């Protein structure tokens, strides 16, 4: 065997090596496919510790501060996104979640209308090894309820007054309008889910005093080609 091998030129040895490697590669499955391994315990703990979500007012603060260290992901369809989306959000419909190229070390905040889709997406991404995934607690519903159309007390105490001022400022920033507690109690008829339809329509998408600083996440990135 050794004698025969030594009669080969370098090029022939290289060719032989390539063919051998190619033959072994016949059985290769280099694309991992979509199956994932879940660490159920780790995920359950994350949910129990509430390390899995971000509250609406928190997100509002981040947007106002023009923080650029996270990426806001809208999981709804394109048409829903076009109608209204939280400023700075990038649209990744549920179906394209795995293809979207979201970075595994990025801080991602997911939202949908309520909490179901964002919870499902959170699970899928965590299972794939994404480290910094969070859901917007309550989704757009809670966003509308607590940030854009916050409920203000009718006869505020001094403490409540400063809190209400803050809520009013935030609400205006996002193009919304505060609601009075009394009106909600009267008109809502104890059915919180129905509170919105009578209210003002959600503001059209326009970058509210757009964060001047870092590029908005998802803004048209320059392309580089090959």
């Amino acid at each position: 065997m050794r004698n025969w091998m030594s009669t080969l030129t370098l090029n022939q040895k290289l060719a032989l090596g390539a063919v051998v490697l190619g033959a072994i590669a016949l059985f290769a499955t280099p694309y991992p496919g979509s199956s994932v391994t879940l660490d159920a315990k780790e995920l359950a703990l994350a949910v129990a510790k509430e390390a899995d979500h971000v509250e609406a007012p928190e997100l509002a603060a981040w947007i106002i501060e023009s923080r650029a260290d996270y990426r806001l992901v809208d999981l709804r369809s394109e048409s829903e996104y076009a109608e209204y989306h939280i400023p700075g959000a990038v649209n990744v419909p549920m179906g394209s979640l795995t293809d979207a190229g979201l970075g595994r070390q990025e801080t991602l905040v997911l939202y949908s209308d309520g909490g179901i889709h964002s919870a499902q997406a959170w699970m899928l991404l965590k299972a794939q090894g994404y480290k910094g995934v969070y859901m917007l607690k309550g989704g757009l519903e809670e966003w509308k309820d607590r940030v854009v159309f916050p409920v203000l007390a009718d006869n505020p105490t001094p403490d409540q007054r400063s809190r209400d001022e803050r809520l009013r400022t935030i609400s205006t920033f996002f193009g919304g309008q505060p609601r009075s507690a009394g009106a909600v109690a009267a008109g809502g008829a104890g059915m919180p889910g129905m509170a919105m339809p009578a209210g003002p329509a959600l503001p059209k998408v326009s970058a509210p005093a757009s964060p001047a600083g870092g590029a908005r996440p998802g803004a048209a990135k320059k392309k580089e080609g090959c």
Partner: protein
Amino acid sequence: MMAPFLKYGMFGDETSLVVAFLIGIGFGFFLERAGFGSARKLVSQFYLNDLAVFKVMFTAIVTAMLGVTYLGWIGWLDLSLVYLVPTYLMPQVVGGLILGAGFVVGGYCPGTSVAATATGRVDGLLFVIGIFAGMFAFAEVYPLVKGFYLSGAGVAMTLPATFGVPYGVVVFAVVLMAVGGFYGAGLLEKKFATGATE
């Protein structure tokens, strides 16, 4: 090992520019090592005197292909995170023909023209200037060719996926084709060699 490192957050965009420069050095180094800083050497491929272009290109393809296949297979490289240029079949077919024509008319391709300029070839420099002029011209006439430019699939497609053949089978086929080609190249060179390649 979690690769591609950049996609797993091992380093940031700024560092990736440094990485780009370093990889470029390796790229340029081996291009020139292969003698591809010379138009006469490159063009000899198309007169069948010196088939180094075929040998180098396909050896590189096979090497990287085997590397990617094995690393993906053992799970060290997440292939789905490696960028695959979308296929636009007709523009790529026509573009290829035009590029081939340009290759033999001008004597270089974009990468080798930079390598040639770096080693003092004035014709390499003119080629580079030509590319700039051509790119500008293309951008100017873009509205006219836009329809054709955007035709074709526009989706990333691999050979195995398109033809429904297992990935490994295509890999093996490519290796066989390349090795067979190298053997054939040797025969052709013997037949057509003129020594006018250096």
